[in-house]
């Protein structure tokens, strides 16, 4: 028996999300009186793998098969299911990101395991096994009981703080018995954004809406983001108009983010926008309309003209930094 956690890597490196997952799995393992085993797929060095141990994994299994070079959801599912079965895993933890969402539901069917998808907390209780998850695009939460012997959880990014602990983990390189014929996805081309902080990784996000008035006014917003080490985002009409790139659109139909700080500038706060950002720890709103719904979701607000306020914020941050 153990808790198996799939720790995704990016070009051979783990990132904060991987450590959040392993820390979460270690805590769930503790609650269920067992230990966490981390699974890595791809070419990852032993030094990098060891890091998973520092976040509480007792054992680290590494799969380096060429068949798993690119994401093929069937091949990945077969591989993870095989490891889960060999390890007698009763709980499997994955990220609630593109990768996790394409594998976890398949595992659920294959292992007849109930899934608690997009949870942002530790299980409420272990027996019965009850998880907490967001529903109605963040307008409510649900307490859901998982009734199967094996359970699958997908954890929302930035919802569990990584916990570093001194711990020696064993690393085992394994093979799985997947058949090449299973791989039915062929990757033809990859286009990567480089050198830019990913919106989904950012701990601070500065986002602009139609209240920015024109694509030419983004200078101070981008400068503020750079100074804060933040990613930039926007509302849907802004990306629809082509003022900002599509990757920046947050909301129900765009990216769902949960940074520590979300600064919404000239964004009205429509439910569909809030659906993608309401899990942020702090929301700041800058809006000329004191009745804009965004102020109901925000902890801090300024009623005023974005064009005037943004440059002043830039200066204020510069001053603070100079100290």
């Amino acid at each position, binding site marked *: 028996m153990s808790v198996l956690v799939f720790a995704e890597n990016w070009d051979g490196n783990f990132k904060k999300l991987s450590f959040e997952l392993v820390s979460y799995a270690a805590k769930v393992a503790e609650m269920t009186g067992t230990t966490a085993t981390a699974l890595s797929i791809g070419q990852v060095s032993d030094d990098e793998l060891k890091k998973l141990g520092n976040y509480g994994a007792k054992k680290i299994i590494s799969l380096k098969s060429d068949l798993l070079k690119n994401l093929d959801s069937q091949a990945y599912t077969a591989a993870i299911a095989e490891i889960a079965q060999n390890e007698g895993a009763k709980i499997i933890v994955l990220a609630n990101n593109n990768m996790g969402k394409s594998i*976890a539901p398949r595992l659920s069917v294959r292992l007849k395991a109930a899934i608690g998808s997009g949870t942002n907390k530790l299980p409420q209780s272990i027996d019965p096994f009850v998880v907490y998850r967001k529903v109605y695009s963040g307008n409510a939460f649900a307490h859901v009981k998982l009734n199967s012997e094996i359970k699958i959880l997908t954890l929302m990014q930035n919802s569990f703080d990584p916990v570093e602990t001194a711990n020696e983990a064993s690393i085992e390189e394994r093979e799985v018995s997947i058949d090449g014929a299973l791989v039915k996805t062929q990757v*033809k081309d990859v286009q990567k954004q480089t050198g830019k902080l990913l919106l989904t990784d950012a701990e601070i996000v500065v986002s602009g809406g139609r209240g920015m008035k024109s694509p030419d006014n983004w200078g101070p917003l981008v400068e503020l983001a750079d100074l804060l080490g933040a990613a930039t985002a926007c509302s849907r009409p802004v990306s629809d108009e082509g003022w900002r790139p599509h990757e920046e659109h947050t909301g129900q139909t765009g990216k769902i983010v949960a940074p520590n700080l979300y600064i919404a500038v000239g964004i009205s706060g429509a439910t569909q926008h809030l659906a993608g950002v309401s899990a942020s720890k702090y929301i700041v709103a800058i809006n000329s309309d004191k009745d804009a719904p965004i102020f109901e979701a925000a902890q801090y607000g300024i009623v005023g003209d974005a064009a005037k306020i943004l440059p002043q914020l830039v200066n204020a941050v510069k001053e603070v930094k100079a100290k």
Partner: protein
Amino acid sequence: MKILVCISNVPDTTTKVKFTDNNTKLDSTGVQWVINPWDELALTRALELKDNPASGVKGVTVAHVGPASSEPTIRKALAIGADDAIRVNFEPTEAYQVATQLAEVIKNEPFDIILCGIESSDYNGSTVGSMLAEFLNAPSVSAVSGLNVENGEATITRDIDGGKETVSVQKPFVAIVQKGIAKEPRIAAMRGIMQARTKQIKVVEPVGVSPLTELIEFEPPKPRAKCIFVDAENPKQLIELLQNEAKVI
């Protein structure tokens, strides 16, 4: 070549969500039911492909697992342009049941491309599409932001962390679609609404399947603390609050 679009019936996204029966049921008074926004975009893309003779796409069917009361939503899909519809007469409580029923439909009537949305805007599960693919033992591609079909061959763009990948995949497959798959949802024109009246909704009886999960209760979100306003003449104070009070910068 045939495309199946799986549609879920969800409360309009501006609905004020309230619950009844000790917070175990959505209070549906005054709720407007609509096609899940992603599914509407998936349907739009399927129809765009069918409109292009070079694609080889000949038919677009929609499938829904739900009671007779969701037929207006299915009719709407037919009015937008789907050729026909299948409704599995079953009121699911969770995704595993939905995927089981859809898989049964597809085993009896095969499709080349199956489209699902990335999530239903009600339960936000993001699970039906991939579960369905596993039941069918078919490949699935998630986070699909582009789908093109030429002479029956599909090319897919999927989002990965920090970029995009172009992939090809063996048919039949399930594509789980998101932003980018189509620009604007197609709207039903008068002619489509008239035609939809005569299009067929095939009703099939469900197979038995017990749920793996059980809803205990819903919880409305806790109201956030009231907004603290900073004077527009002194924005610097905001930075101080973020630094010293919230401790986020």
